[in-house]
């Protein structure tokens, strides 16, 4: 059973996303909404990771070796310059999308494994991940015309 690997993947992705949210918050503190929102969402991601942990451990006991290229880096730090905010939010969006699709896969697997507790956890968290994506997109859509067309 390979579920453990996907659980591990999502667990790591959630922690990576939390870290990225906090770094974007810190480096864009001049944008107060980004600063506060990103810290809030980082806490959500950490909470998701915490909720996943018991399942990672339970399914990890008898898991086969981890397959190749399971996890890929999506974030290599914040940027500077006129497009920094947009590009950094763009990264966050893709990282949240990675988590979002992982929640969907794990939800499918939880049904296959008849694991109600895992399914409940998926239902508890996947909506928040979807809203995280939506928030990042909302903020980017607002910023894009000014950043791409107006600012010099």
């Amino acid at each position, binding site marked *: 059973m390979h579920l453990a690997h996907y659980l591990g993947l999502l667990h790591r992705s959630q922690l990576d996303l939390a870290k990225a949210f906090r770094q974007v918050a810190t480096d864009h503190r*001049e*944008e*107060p*909404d980004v600063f*506060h*929102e990103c810290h*809030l*969402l980082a806490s959500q991601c950490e909470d998701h990771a915490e909720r996943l942990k018991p399942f990672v451990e339970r399914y990890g006991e008898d898991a086969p070796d981890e397959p190749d290229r399971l996890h890929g880096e999506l974030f290599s730090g914040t940027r500077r310059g006129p497009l920094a905010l947009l590009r950094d939010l763009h990264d966050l969006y893709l990282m949240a999308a990675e988590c979002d699709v992982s929640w969907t896969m794990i939800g499918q697997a939880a049904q296959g494994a008849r694991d109600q507790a895992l399914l409940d956890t998926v239902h508890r968290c996947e909506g928040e991940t979807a*809203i*995280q994506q*939506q*928030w990042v*997109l*909302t903020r980017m*859509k*607002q910023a*894009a*015309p*000014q950043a791409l*067309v*107006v*600012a*010099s």
Partner: protein
Amino acid sequence: MVDRIADPWGPRTPYPSDAAPAASGGDARWPVRVDEFLADGVGADDVDRWVQSASILHSNGDAMDVAVKDGRIVGVRGRAVDRVNHGRLGPKDLFGWQANGSPDRLTRPMVRRGGELVETDWDTAMEAVVRRSRELLDTGPGGWGHFGFYTSGQLFLEEYYTLGVIGKAGIGTPHMDGNTRLCTATAAAALKESFGSDGQPGSYTDIDHCDALALWGHNVAETQTVLWARMLDRRCGPRPPRMLAVDPRATAVAREADIHLAVRNGTNQALMNGLIRLLLHHGWVDEAYVAAHAIGLEELAEVVEPYSAPRVAAICDVPAAEVEAAAELLGTCERLVSTVLQGFYQSHQATAAACQVNNVHILRGMLGRPGAGLYQMNGQPTAQNTRETGADGDLPGFRNWDNPEHIRQLAELWGVDSMKIPHWAPPTHAMQLWRYAEQGSIRLLWISATNPAVSLPDLARIRRILAAPELFVVVQDLFLTETARLADVVLPAATWGEKTGTFTNVDRTVHLSEKAVDPPGEARADLDIFLDYARRMGFSRNDGSPLVHWHDPESAFEAWKQASKGRLCDYSAITYDRLRGGSGIQWPCTDEAPDGTERLYVDGRFTTDPDRCETYGHDLATGAVHTEQAYRAFEPDGRAFLKAARYQPPPEQPTDDRPFLLTTGRTVYHFHTRTKTGRAPQLDRAAPSVWVELSSADAEALGVEEGDVVRLDSARGSLEGPARISGIRPGVVFVPFHYGYWDADADAAGPDGRPATAANELTETVWDPVSKQPLFKVAAVQVTRVAAGDGPAPAPTVGGPAPVGGRVVPTTAGGPAADARSTTEG
């Protein structure tokens, strides 16, 4: 005669409710009491003529007539026939008009030359603005994005609509907002989230019929004195309503209430979740109403479930038994009136908490019938009209920026392409607009009738932005305000009494305010300034004819009627003539409802149809925008949304270094940054300068006596003022936000080395994720005693700053200069 400084609310006229009001509202009638104040030595017989108007110094919409003698305003009198005030006026109405005649009114335009503002003529000033506008538009396809318009809550409807059309269809910029973002944005946001559209459900006559009143962060006694008089008159009459107040301060409202919850600042959402949980647990729910008219009950119940009374008591620091008592008051009444204002709107989780008040009314079926009224209040007199006409972060006629059909309607009306009208995202909110100016992508900022150099958070930053040489600042105002002192062009404006236009109060009552006298010198009506700019810029429709094709207030009103037709705020059957002589009229006013509409949603059908709604909604915790697709999936079908959110701790918490929580607010005697009220002698004397309110316990711990000078320090800045020991909750300090620098030093835009007096030196640039309203009610500060005082603090003894602890403080009084006539019928 009544000293209306000593008694801002005037004599009581008690009245009963109907025991069982008829569906039409029954016959309970608030008695008429006509208030009048005339200048010294002027009798009613001396007045040449009375000119119809309404109040411009608060949002209640109190109708009045302006007395004119020898071409000058000499007084005011409340209009007995008006549905809003039945003749009453508050102290700001009675005395505030004197500022019109102030000797330091701006009478000529000014431009900056060699670093100094110098007087010039209108042609020179307007051409400077037009030249800069053209240069910026010519910079490329993103020229529109260099323009920001920051307006007010004190202009007239016709002016806002004209400004909105200039910005949205002339320049094509989404960067339009105003001071209303600081006062009323959450009211609009909460109404949109719950009911699909802005628009107050209730009517002021609900006060006449209710059996319970809940005031949520609303110090109505100092913000809308005449509304408070109506409530007090019910409280003094037979069958008085029970009353709940939520406020960290011991205001006049809190002292009158049966239950006062002095919650810790920033915890409203926890309180509301707890109250709703108790309503659900006790079954204090109109199940049939909810089943037929609401969606989201299941999620709401799940979200509020963890908020037990003991947990809420711990978060909010109020007794659990009082939380339970408040829930019982809300749950067992038959006709509930709720009002909400800055204690919720300017606090943490503003929209979420305001939506929970809506939820109380939805759950209890307390909407659309006499006595069951909900008012998401406005702070400023004409704030409602910025929201309706789209001079702020909204589109005209409560249209939805994300609905292409709504944009098409505007494009057709304005004769421009849909692409011209910015609608790729919500219109830019004020805080973002200032951020773009700070970053340098907004390069022309046009500020009309407001004073952001005193009213916005973190003033040191705002002064820095305004003073930057790259930013071309146009200020249109009556006086050389702190903001105007930093402008590149200053345009002298006419004000209330000197120009004609309409405005709308919180219960949708539209009033006409007619020109009574000429403006001083060369000052011009704001409408005329906007019309002049549009003409000089040559803004046109696709067919080449002028975009702004109206030429005076009445033709502007007629143009607005077209924009409003068919929308919830439908003005189409109102005319200037119909507004003359009688009472104001409540919108929607259409051929089908020619006398206006007293209550919205009487049939429980809300404005949530996807093709009609003003928004597809937001996630309350983050402000993430819902897509049209997601919204349609709710299948709202005219039902209201029961929106839910967990409590989150506020962003700034007290620390060892800054152990106190600051909250800011107003006094009954002043409006905004005192540009007018500070120039009315009776009002100025009642509250002449800044003070700091402390609780007895904190004062004792700090060794502070009444009147001692204390300094407040936050992460942004500091302020000094004499201490008033008041009934505020321990751990919280209050500073009124009115006191800038214009009267300390004729040239000062800021403290300039002296101790600061503006509360917003301390506040943080942070805002609610949905309404984008800044948080003025939650900032961590340190309090330090600086020096002994030379007498009591200059704070009034009336309202929130009432002294406690037996210290002898002279009672606030206006003396003979503040004597006003109050005439009661019968």
